[in-house]
């Protein structure tokens, strides 16, 4: 998996939340093999920034570009290369872990039973595959959401507080997954206020200031 020339760039993003001017001229770029950690105190706009990147929130001004081209008017193409893990796990409690993956990750890429199983194994919940998501623990639900992210096979990962609800082993798993992803030439942007890959060579920081 190679993502040559897959540079993501944001230029002078400005966004409001109601009356509050949250993002002021935020600019950065991420290259293949890089993990950008967005930090800053609560309420500084980390989630807002990630949602603007995903197009879930409109930016007032500013330009996002992917592979050297503006993504304006090419959202669907860009979205296909974008994997998003938000605050919400996007799971259906009444569906089993496998069904959750089939019905949500399956919208993006065609899945086989083997890929689903190997991914569940990777995030350590293969034995829970046929349980309804409702009966999983908070940490296991997060792992299931991570499995969905992996199956998306996206070049650019957008992770909002990815280690929420995870134990030490879970945090290590997220770190491994991110490192693997960027080592294969992928890009990752995460908002986190815990320690996350703080000493890794691929890490770059973006500090948002109030």
């Amino acid at each position, binding site marked *: *998996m190679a993502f040559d020339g897959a540079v993501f760039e944001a230029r002078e993003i400005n966004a409001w939340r109601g009356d509050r001017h949250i993002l002021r001229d935020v600019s950065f770029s991420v290259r293949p093999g890089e993990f950008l950690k967005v930090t800053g105190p609560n309420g500084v706009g980390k989630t807002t920034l990630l*949602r603007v990147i*995903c*197009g*879930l*929130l*409109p930016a007032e001004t500013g330009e996002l570009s992917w592979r050297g081209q503006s993504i304006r008017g090419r959202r*669907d*193409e860009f*979205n*296909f*290369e*974008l994997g*998003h893990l*938000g*605050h*919400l*796990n*996007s*799971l*259906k409690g*009444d*569906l089993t872990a496998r*069904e959750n993956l*089939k*019905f*949500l990750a*399956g*919208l*993006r*890429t*065609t899945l086989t039973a083997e*890929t689903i199983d190997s991914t569940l194994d990777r995030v350590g919940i293969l034995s829970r595959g046929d349980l309804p998501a409702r009966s999983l623990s908070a940490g296991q639900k997060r792992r299931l959401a991570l499995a*969905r992210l992996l199956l998306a*096979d996206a070049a650019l990962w957008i992770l909002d507080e990815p280690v929420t609800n995870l134990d030490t082993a879970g945090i290590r798993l997220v770190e491994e997954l991110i490192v693997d992803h960027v080592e294969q030439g992928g890009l990752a942007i995460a908002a986190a206020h815990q320690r996350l890959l703080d000493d890794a060579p691929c890490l770059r920081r973006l500090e948002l200031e109030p």
Partner: protein
Amino acid sequence: MSAVRTPTLAAARLVFQRDMTLAWRRWDEVAQPLIFYVVVTTMFPLATTPDLSALREIGGGVVWVAALLASLLALESLFRADVEDGTTEQWVLSGQPLGYLLLAKVAAHWVLTGLPLVIMSPIVGTGLGLPTSVWGVLMFSLLLGTGTLSILGGIGAALTVGVRRGSVLLSLLVLPLAMPLLIFGSRAVTMQMDGDSPAGPLQLLAAIFFMALSLGPLAMSAAIRISVEN
């Protein structure tokens, strides 16, 4: 791992299949609109007269009003769970045309709530004195009408998913838009009963249905994008 992009049609089928699976596990929720439909139509003979020949005069209209209200009732929560648990967010980001995914969801919803109303309508209509000769027109007009209403209601539900007291608001938004359906649908039934050809109103219903089918996904996807912004 090499990713094969899911074709849009397959993606829409997955959404449809998912809602069917979910409904199968929560069948009681699916049955509620149908029960509501029967209960409402029972109220009319009790409130007016048990005389079937008198009821026949308003029977077509009553069946139509009850069917519209019942399917609207069911539409209120159409997108709520998916927006709250973040599923729609992932649909928006799936790289698939959002309108088709939402249309597939509405189609599943119609099969689960609209279609049972259509199938039940001859029984309900008989209770209101409608002769068997109008069954066909009644069912066909309701088939088109509930289909259109599902799309209109889908737009309304997508707009009101994040707001307070969404259910009353949804009715306020959608019912005025549904008036033409009511006019043409109930009139088609009456015309058939009076021995006139109901082709005119049925064609108009069909035209409105196809218009909703072509423009509805556009409006629904715009509305859902607004609703996931928070």
